[in-house]
């Protein structure tokens, strides 16, 4: 048993870190967040060149065929850079849904262009009730047409096609389809734009059954948690650096236990989130019977931890942490969006309870 990264995993993580640091430093991220869509075609093309757009998908569709642990590592590094744009929506979410629910022909049609970097996409899930419980979805396709609304759809404005979760199946709607209307929502996370997507008798192609979604959503949820880990790590790094250099009362503020012990807690929360995320990635990859529990553990813990790490980071920075210029609040905003996405901590605690208490529990696979 070896719960450390293999050499190739270390290599992937390091090169991703260097890639994002080089191609999407803070200034670039801030520039993109001020744009309407936070999307940059040149950056996307570089992501494609790295193979990131096809990272976990089969080579048959132009993917790289790596595992879920590798996806976690990549998302962790993307989170550290606060990568703006539709990478999560397109590759992680839409890609996983396509990979899970559709036929080889549909994969060739929709997944392959994602892997190849030619298409952007997203998945429309939530409705006005904003419930992550699939039973609360009302939208129904009739005669290959959709009429209704989806809320909180990330990056819809630059999607070439939108995957739509309806009661009676999973559908693809082309960006140019008649009756499709996309309007921005003004939300806290400036680097991942949200939209309302309206359908009015809009033609939609059925690509699979909703039963396949659970697995895809688990992958997306774990990857979102991994992204939170990267954000926590960056927040911790910035904060520790500040605590070493900022002086008050003639000493670096990190000398004061009120500051230092909060940094220690940030470290504990970050590392614990990382452990949970890596385990979830491994459990998903191995189709371990506790994979769904592991995903909920990771999302539950990381949702809360990202918020508390952010709170501590801002607090330790003092007035400086409250300024627009300091990046900490940008990570904090992303953490807020991600905290509720795919279910908040309360949602996942209840999901864990239903699996552990009611079902008698599948014990996490043990050594």
């Amino acid at each position, binding site marked *: 048993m070896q719960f450390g990264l293999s050499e190739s995993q270390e290599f992937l993580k390091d090169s991703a870190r260097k890639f994002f640091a080089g191609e999407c430093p803070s200034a670039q991220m801030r520039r993109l967040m001020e744009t309407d869509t936070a999307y940059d075609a040149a950056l996307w093309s570089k992501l494609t060149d790295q193979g990131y757009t096809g990272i976990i998908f089969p080579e048959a569709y132009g993917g790289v065929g790596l595992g879920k642990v590798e996806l976690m590592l990549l998302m962790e590094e993307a989170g550290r850079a606060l990568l703006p744009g539709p990478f999560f929506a397109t590759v992680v979410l839409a890609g996983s849904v396509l990979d899970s629910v559709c036929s080889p022909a549909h994969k060739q049609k929709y997944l392959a262009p994602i892997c190849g970097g030619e298409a952007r996409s997203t998945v429309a899930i*939530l409705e006005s*009730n*904003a*419930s992550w*419980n699939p039973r609360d979805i009302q939208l129904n396709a009739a005669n290959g047409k959709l009429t209704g609304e989806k*809320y*909180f759809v990330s990056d819809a404005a630059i999607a070439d096609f939108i995957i739509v979760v309806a009661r009676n199946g999973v559908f693809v709607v082309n960006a140019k389809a008649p009756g499709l209307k996309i309007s921005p*929502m*003004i*939300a*806290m*996370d400036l680097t991942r734009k949200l939209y*309302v997507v309206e359908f009015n008798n809009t033609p939609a192609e059925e690509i699979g059954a909703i039963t396949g979604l659970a697995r895809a959503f688990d992958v997306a949820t774990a990857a979102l948690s991994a992204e939170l880990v990267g954000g926590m790590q960056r927040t911790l790094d910035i904060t520790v650096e500040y605590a070493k250099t900022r*002086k*008050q*009362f*003639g000493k670096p503020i990190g000398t*004061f*236990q*009120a*500051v230092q012990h909060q940094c220690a807690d940030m470290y504990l929360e970050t590392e614990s989130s990382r452990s949970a995320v890596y385990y979830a990635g491994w459990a998903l990859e191995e189709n371990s019977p506790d994979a769904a529990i592991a995903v909920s553990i990771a999302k539950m813990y990381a949702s809360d931890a990202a*918020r508390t790490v952010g*709170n501590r980071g*801002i*607090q330790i920075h*003092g*007035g400086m*942490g*409250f*300024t*627009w*210029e*300091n990046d*900490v*609040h940008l990570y*904090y*905003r992303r953490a*807020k*969006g991600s*905290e*509720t*996405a795919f279910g*908040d901590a*309360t949602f996942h605690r209840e999901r864990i309870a239903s699996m552990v208490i009611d079902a008698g529990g599948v014990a996490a696979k043990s050594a």
Partner: protein
Amino acid sequence: MDLNLTSEELQFRDELRSWLASNVPKDWNEWREKPIEESFPYLRAWQRKLQEGRWAAVSWPKEYAGRSATLMQQALFWEEMARVEAPPMANSLGLGLIGPTIIAYGTEAQKQRYIPKILSAEEIWCQGFSEPNAGSDLAGLQTQAVLHGDHYVVNGQKVWTSYGWVGDWCELVVRTDATAAKHKGLTVVLVDMKSPGVEVRPLRQMTGESEFNELFFRDVRVPAENVLGKVNDGWNVAMSTLMYERGSYGARLHLIFKRYITRLIELARNIQRNGRPAAQDPIIRQKLAQCSAEIEIMRFNQMRAFSRLTATGVPGPEGSIQKIFWSELNQRLQQIAQEILGSYGQLLAGDPRAIDNGMWSYAYLRTRGNTIEAGTSEVQRNIIGHFVLGLPRSY
């Protein structure tokens, strides 16, 4: 112990209530969302109206157009103002903090010169205390003032100045003796913000707004007669201002927080969670109840503190409890709001689907500053530890 109002308090409250009933502007709701630059003349006018009713500075002595209001009456004043959702006053720092400091430390000439125009909102005041390198450590201030004949020449930078953009005058803490121990060589001077060399820049916060400013002083000449209190006694003068700050906070918070929780309960009745209204969800109920209870306890603590201060007359270090309590409670409250609002919680003002026009997302971000501004939670715990419990200094 008697929590009923005394007849004097009742009389004070009733007089205020009836004055407010006929004088509070009805159209504040139309103005409050507008940029402060636009609504500022409106706030000046409102303060002048309060002044006409002798309500602008109730805590001030009668000779300075105040009412020598007791602390309890001051608390009643803010409660009544919050109850009718009265607009704030334009010169709130001048009235709340700086005016009282001038009354306490100023010369007769200074009082004559500044007090009337503070009251009338003719001259708006701001405060120049924090610096980029002196936040929690106020004694480490570096802004320099050097005496040249009959004036000081001031050089330095201040941050986190409210009302800096509109300030006519500034209560500025400067270092007048670089050789003295840290909190010794400081002096408070009153600076005309129109003096050459004063520059005001907006300071953008994480909420996206610019509530605060940065002030830059480059060879600014300040007449020596503008020293408030004694030269090199600025630490005590500034601390006195901060005590007023700590004391004045909180009095009106109870009704504001109560309004938050009432609205939140109303929202919870209408938001569905697990197939029933969130207000019926046992987990949400626990959190709302805890928060409701803490809002009441905040008020009980404040009432006890007011009663204690009424006996001693001067705000003391126990104000640190209030500061910690309200700031951390407000953060917990906003977190509960976020949990109830779910995905809607992240929508900002301007989004047509934002609940209460984004009040909750704004408050979520804004409350992050509560545990930093006006003395961080860490500084407050130092104060309790050292000055209240008598533990050795920890910093």
